[in-house]
């Protein structure tokens, strides 16, 4: 589980070489939308040569492959065969697209995690089945394409995207998979903070980023705050002392869902290294 997923184009050496200094939790090397059709082969060669020679250690790396509409998916899969990557981002994910991908040969990609990019209206009518697919690790909301396919102008009012955001998060959570929110296309910090606030409100685990400058704000705002960690810690300590799943703390009733939420928050804080030196918190 991660906070920030940063797209970097597969055809820009300067960005590939710096991928580990951007502090993103996950890097997505893009072979799809960021790459012009006449540069697809350049991006494939560059990405593969880079990963063979300079793959950063301990950094999860996904590759967004092309969809099969234009037969580029097979070429991508042939190219990435054998590379040390964490998984792939599958564009325009649907059950049919998953079937196409998982049956495509020759590949040795059977052990790769698949993040399904949900960006067509059709996908929302089979979202639960997509989320429960055994190869799916997480669902990502592709807001720009979805906006194009549905005529929703999300630049006017984000409220139009409330329903797809909720549906995606519910489907992911019901299947115990990760839910990752669409990126903010503006490079303005205020717009990004507003977008991240919505990401949290809708219960997403992480957020896509389209520029390295977006990563620090996403990491900061999607990590548990000091206040929240402090409160969660008090709840867990009180729960352990009382040995009960139902008690009062500062005049507020604490029961099982609140204790579970506090533990989840501390687990998340631990994952992001925010509990250093505090063994009792876990």
């Amino acid at each position, binding site marked *: 589980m991660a906070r920030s997923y940063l797209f970097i184009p597969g055809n820009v050496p300067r960005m590939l070489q710096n991928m580990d200094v951007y502090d993103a939790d996950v890097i997505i090397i893009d072979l799809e939308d960021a790459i012009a059709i006449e540069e697809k*082969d350049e991006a494939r060669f560059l990405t593969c040569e880079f990963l063979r020679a300079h793959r950063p250690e301990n950094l999860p790396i996904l590759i967004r492959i092309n969809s099969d509409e234009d037969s580029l998916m097979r070429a991508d899969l042939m190219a990435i065969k054998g590379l040390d990557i964490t998984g792939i981002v599958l564009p325009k994910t649907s059950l049919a697209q998953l079937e196409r991908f998982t049956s495509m040969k020759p590949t040795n990609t059977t052990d790769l995690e698949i993040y399904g990019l949900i960006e067509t209206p059709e996908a929302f009518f089979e979202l639960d089945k997509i989320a429960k697919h055994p190869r799916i690790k997480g669902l990502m909301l592709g807001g720009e394409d979805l906006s194009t396919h549905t005529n929703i102008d999300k630049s006017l009012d984000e409220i139009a995207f409330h329903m797809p955001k909720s549906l995606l998060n519910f489907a992911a959570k019901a299947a115990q998979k990760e839910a990752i929110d669409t990126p903010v296309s503006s490079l303005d910090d205020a717009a990004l903070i507003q977008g991240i606030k919505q990401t949290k409100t809708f219960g997403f685990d992480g957020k896509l980023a389209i520029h390295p400058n977006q990563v620090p704000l996403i990491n900061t705002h999607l990590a548990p705050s000091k206040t929240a960690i402090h409160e969660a810690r008090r709840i867990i300590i009180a729960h352990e002392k009382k040995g009960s799943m139902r008690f009062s703390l500062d005049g507020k009733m604490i029961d099982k869902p609140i204790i579970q939420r506090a533990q989840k928050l501390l687990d998340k804080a631990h994952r992001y290294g925010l509990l250093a030196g505090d063994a009792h918190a876990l």
Partner: protein
Amino acid sequence: MADIITVGTLESSDCMVSLKPSKTLEIKIDTIVHEAFYHHIKTVVEKILNEAELKNIHLSLTDKGALDYTIKARLKTAIERFKEANNG
């Protein structure tokens, strides 16, 4: 006969590779780090051309501080396009 094949950019950390048919093997390398890396770059280029069994070719490489993997990737792309253009 193919026109000139050009791959890559002149941005920092990248290189631009051009290939065109020639009666002999000609290699021209222009690099911002000539003193330190000209011979190294030439060795990388020659190895890839050798592997691709290309002998009748004029190669021009303009380097803007590219690492080996970038030179290899740009050259391999150019070779693949060159072969496609010349062998159908």
